[in-house]
């Protein structure tokens, strides 16, 4: 009896030892650092010996023009990237689901592939295309649209193009996974009952794909809001976004307190923006999002 109990105990210990690292790893390397960021954002000075006194100065500094401008610019960029991705993803996904039969899995493979390749390569591919002596400029000159090469690289347009290119798959996958499940008879019924294509789209397809769309919107919005690499490489030093400023605070200015405060403020902004989008969709289309959580 005692022996059995001891064995039982031992088994629990084994399960505990095997299972707990997954918790500890997340807790120590993600949740503790998050809390730590908060702590250093409200202390004056900190080093290995301890923290200084509590201050809100880092947060007051966020009310200055520069941080506000950078957060707004990032929001605008995120909205733009997300909207373009939605507009591009819908027709492709609809076309694949309705009109492509045998080739569909191959065409989906082609859409999945960019997600699996190092995204710096996509940035580089566009870097080559948009360069002063790159292919887009050469093409435009050959077509006679311009006479001198224009600087396409290091522009706002270049950032938007590369962002959309990089994040389009994030919009396409979730949308595809819900579009695929729509019963085609529903669309036929809608057409039979006299609805036009656009009526069918807005009354049938759109509500049925809303959950996938929202997943895509969150993925694209959050990643493009905090993007650092793309503006850094194809935007030159002219455009500054949230990701760049965070990097600047931590790696260049070595001002971790201000960096932490800025990181927290921008995270709250993006969280607020996303909750705002969700609240809007919930109120505009009650029922469509029932039971769907973030």
């Amino acid at each position, binding site marked *: 009896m005692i022996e059995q109990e001891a064995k039982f105990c031992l088994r629990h210990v084994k399960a505990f030892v095997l299972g707990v690292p997954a918790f500890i*790893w997340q807790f120590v390397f993600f949740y503790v650092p998050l809390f730590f960021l908060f702590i250093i954002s409200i202390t004056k000075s900190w080093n290995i010996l301890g923290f200084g006194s509590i201050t809100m100065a880092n947060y007051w500094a966020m009310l200055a023009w520069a941080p506000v401008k950078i957060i707004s610019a990032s929001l605008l960029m995120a909205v733009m990237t997300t909207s373009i991705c939605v507009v591009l993803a819908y027709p492709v996904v609809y076309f694949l689901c309705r009109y492509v039969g045998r080739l569909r899995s191959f065409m989906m493979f082609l859409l999945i592939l960019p997600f699996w390749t190092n995204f710096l390569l996509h940035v580089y591919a566009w870097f080559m295309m948009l360069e002063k002596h790159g292919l887009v400029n050469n093409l435009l000159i050959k077509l006679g649209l311009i006479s001198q090469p224009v600087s396409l690289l290091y522009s706002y347009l270049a950032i938007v193009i590369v962002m959309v290119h990089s994040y389009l798959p994030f919009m396409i996958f979730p949308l595809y996974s819900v579009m695929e499940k729509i019963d085609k008879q529903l669309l036929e019924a809608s057409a039979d009952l006299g609805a036009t294509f656009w009526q069918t789209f807005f009354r049938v397809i759109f509500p049925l794909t809303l959950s996938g769309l929202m997943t895509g919107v969150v993925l694209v919005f959050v990643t493009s809001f905090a993007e650092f690499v793309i503006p850094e490489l194809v935007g030159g030093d002219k455009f500054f976004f949230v990701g760049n400023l965070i990097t600047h605070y931590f790696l260049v200015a070595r001002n971790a307190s201000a960096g932490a405060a800025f990181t927290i403020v921008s995270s709250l902004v993006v969280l607020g923006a996303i909750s705002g989008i969700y609240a809007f969709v919930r109120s505009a289309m009650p029922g469509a999002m029932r039971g769907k959580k973030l």
Partner: protein
Amino acid sequence: MITDSSGGLRRFLLPLMTLFVYAFLYIPIAILIVFSFNDAVFPVHWNSFTLKWYKQLLHSPEIIQAWINSLIIAASSVSLSILMGLGLIYMSLFVPVRAVVRMSYLILVAPEIVLAVGLLSVLSYLSVPLGFGSLIVGHTLISLGFVIPILFDRFSELNPNIIEASLDLGATRWQTFRRILLPQMTPTIFAAALLVFTLSFDDFLISFFCTGGSVQTISLYIFAMIRSGVSPVLNALSTVIIVASSLLVFAFCLVRVKSRVF
């Protein structure tokens, strides 16, 4: 039938837009690959076919070291995260672990830069030297954010009656885990490992913040090269990576795992 007014839309606009998206995604990549075989220092005009950039790739100790570093980091974070994920599944046979699974979702949705700066500030506060250790810690962390949801997604799909039957018939939980759970989950484990390997191999942000300049990964190398401008060696390197990635995706598609996270 959809009415006439949409005929044009259906017949021309939809295929056209689909074509546009595929062209948008693939023309830059195609050009990138073509110019890796071009015999000119500036990959702008086509000159003649050559393989010399690939040879140069093989003879650059820097690039080879970066590959090796990336491989070590990716392999470590894959094995660590898969082992921890499986350990958690074993533990769930004893106690409910839903809270830990929920914890991992936040890692998945949080912007990677927040993960990176958080980790960086704690490590530098504790004066932990940055290098392989911190890179593996960070990569394993993002890997956990994918591995735990994927594994538990599959775990919840398994028939609970079979697990109960196994326990009823006298198998220990460990035997049930080894003989019943693991065989059924093998394809998912394989797919998750593949996904996480790619994620780690391609990761830039965590590496950028947590390397401390001591360890060069392939992504950091590419970033530095793009900064210094266009070079055909980079085209060759990109082509090699694209081909390798296509093979991996192909393997992933063969396994055909349905999971909510891609």
